């Protein structure tokens, strides 16, 4: 009997995010019937698209025990440059391409500094965070850029009745899931994240893996930025601020470890993203004080991280004692 109770408790703490997600849905559903509408479910997905894409990229980096603080700046810089281009009459696809290239370049820069010069990811990406945002502000002259109609249609467009951002989100998540579970590269990411030294011994080129994950993260940041501005219709100087933290939080909520090697994009990170977005949306639906949003979101993250840390302590001890 005791054994069953114990494992039940374990299940709860192992799936704290999923549970919170269910609780959140039930709670908001009771408080506001409109919350449970089909339309609102789509709303949540649309609003989650940008963060979801961002967090997917972040998951790759976190899996190697790295961190990328520069994603918000990449979003911003990509938004500013593409916005300027479109305003100046460049075609949309050309701007989109430039956005992607910026994301890739920033990812390369991060990765090169990390593995060539052996500076820790935190400092490297903190620096590129400031350089990127500074550059963006320099180019935009700190002005907001209002985008033409064509951008907005990208954000609100639908294919077969499904909003474009949602399609993009699911495409990115499916691809990421495939890469992580079905390719050598994906398996090597987990290996490097667990122990780079062991990975090297197993004949894995750690540098190539690092390059790969930061490039993917940069790419996702740019893409996420594109999705976000296509919904906003404008790039303000505060665009993307703190996005990196939300992306990290979403991934951590989804069970990704800051210390590498543990976690997945699907269902992990996706659930984390949906939890955050559901809370945000639900608070709106029940007409909560908007100033409470960050408080509640932060409290939820704190809770999940706390539970995970206790879990982790237990795992470590079990590992040391050779138990399962």
């Amino acid at each position, binding site marked *: 009997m005791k054994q069953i109770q114990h494992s039940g408790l374990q299940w709860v703490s192992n799936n704290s995010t999923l549970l919170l997600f269910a609780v959140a849905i039930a709670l908001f559903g009771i408080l506001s019937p409109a919350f449970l509408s089909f339309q609102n479910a789509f709303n949540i997905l649309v609003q989650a698209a940008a963060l979801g894409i961002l967090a997917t990229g972040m998951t790759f980096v976190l899996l190697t025990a790295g961190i990328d603080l520069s994603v918000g700046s990449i979003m911003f810089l990509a938004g500013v440059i593409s916005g300027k281009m479109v305003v100046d009459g460049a075609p949309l696809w050309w701007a989109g391409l430039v956005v992607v290239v910026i994301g890739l370049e920033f990812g390369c820069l991060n990765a090169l500094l990390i593995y060539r010069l052996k500076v820790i990811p935190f400092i490297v990406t*903190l620096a590129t965070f400031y350089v990127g945002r500074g550059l963006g502000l320099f180019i935009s002259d700190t002005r907001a850029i209002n985008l033409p109609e064509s951008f907005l249609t990208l954000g609100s467009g639908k294919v077969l009745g499904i909003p474009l951002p949602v399609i993009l989100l699911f495409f990115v998540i499916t691809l990421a899931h495939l890469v992580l579970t079905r390719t050598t590269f994906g398996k090597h990411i987990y290996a490097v994240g667990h122990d780079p030294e062991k990975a090297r011994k197993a004949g894995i080129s750690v540098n190539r893996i690092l390059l790969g994950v930061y490039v993917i993260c940069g790419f996702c940041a740019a893409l996420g930025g594109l999705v976000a501005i296509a919904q906003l219709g404008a790039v303000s100087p505060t665009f993307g601020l703190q996005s990196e933290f939300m992306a990290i939080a979403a991934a951590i909520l989804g069970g990704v470890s800051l210390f590498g090697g543990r976690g997945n994009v699907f269902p992990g990170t996706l659930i984390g993203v949906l939890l955050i977005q559901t809370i945000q949306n639900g608070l709106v639906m029940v007409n909560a004080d908007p100033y409470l949003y960050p408080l509640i979101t932060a409290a939820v993250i704190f809770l999940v991280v706390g539970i995970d840390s206790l879990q982790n302590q237990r795992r470590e001890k079990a590992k040391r004692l050779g138990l399962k």
Partner: protein
Amino acid sequence: MVKIANSESTFVVLLCLGYYLVMTIIAPGFFTVNNSINLLFNLLPLLIISIGQTYVLLTAGIDLSVTAIVAVASVVGGFMMSSDTVWFHNEFTTLFLGILGMLVVGVLIGAINGWAVAKFAMPAFMVTLTTMMLFSGFAIWLTQSQNLYNLPESFVEMHYTYFLGIPVPLYIALFVVLLAYFLLNRTIFGEWIYAVGANKKTARISGVSVSKTLIGVYVFSGFCAAVGAILYTARLETGSPVMGQNILLDVIGAVVIGGTSLFGGKGTIQGTFFGALFMTLLDNSLNLLNLSFFIIMMVKGMVILGAAILNTVVERSLKTG
């Protein structure tokens, strides 16, 4: 170099010195009394907050919540001292309790950080990230995004009040710096900080009270952030929920340039002093050269990166040679 700096901080001392000389020549209005006072007042809060951060980094932690602590302390101080809310009628009581309230807020948030890091073994990055979100949200919620004004005259005039020919904030900063230096270099707490940062397991087995030490450093960081908030609030004559939201880079940058390792166990107060000085010099001089803040932002980012690269290069050459 004399004992003012050990080998680790020689670099940053030279950097400050050289930079100061160059700017004296080329930056208009740099080498003036007015600007020197300016420099000093810009330096003090950053220095104080960076010193708190140094303590945390020495234990291989990080405190991202300093910006939120500055904001909450500023707001609470504003509430307690503003003549719009009239809590106390005596100016001295207002001032005393207001400042005490700010310090208590800092210490409390620090204690929450430390408690979560020490007792739940939560990663410091996540703990302070969430407390940052939580408390900056809290500050905005508390004030509904409003600023608090009409602070007591004696409080807002702090920067222009001289005692024995020295402005009051300098005394405050001096107190914090000396306290920090004393705690770190003369007491068992300081030795324990280095030990916890160098190797938590070894420290624990050697009888070091790891949780007390960890809670201690986060509390100290919170305290320093609150002192920084006092200076910021007085200077801007406003209790603001967004106070200090842009200083995180400057703080971490100052500490890292000052030679403190993010992996713990290595770093000094002297180093952080010069690190903070360099960040302030950079800001002030580039400003005087009429560069906009975003260019300064980029330069700062690159300078931090440069310092980190140099640090690893030096460390590697020490290892191989």
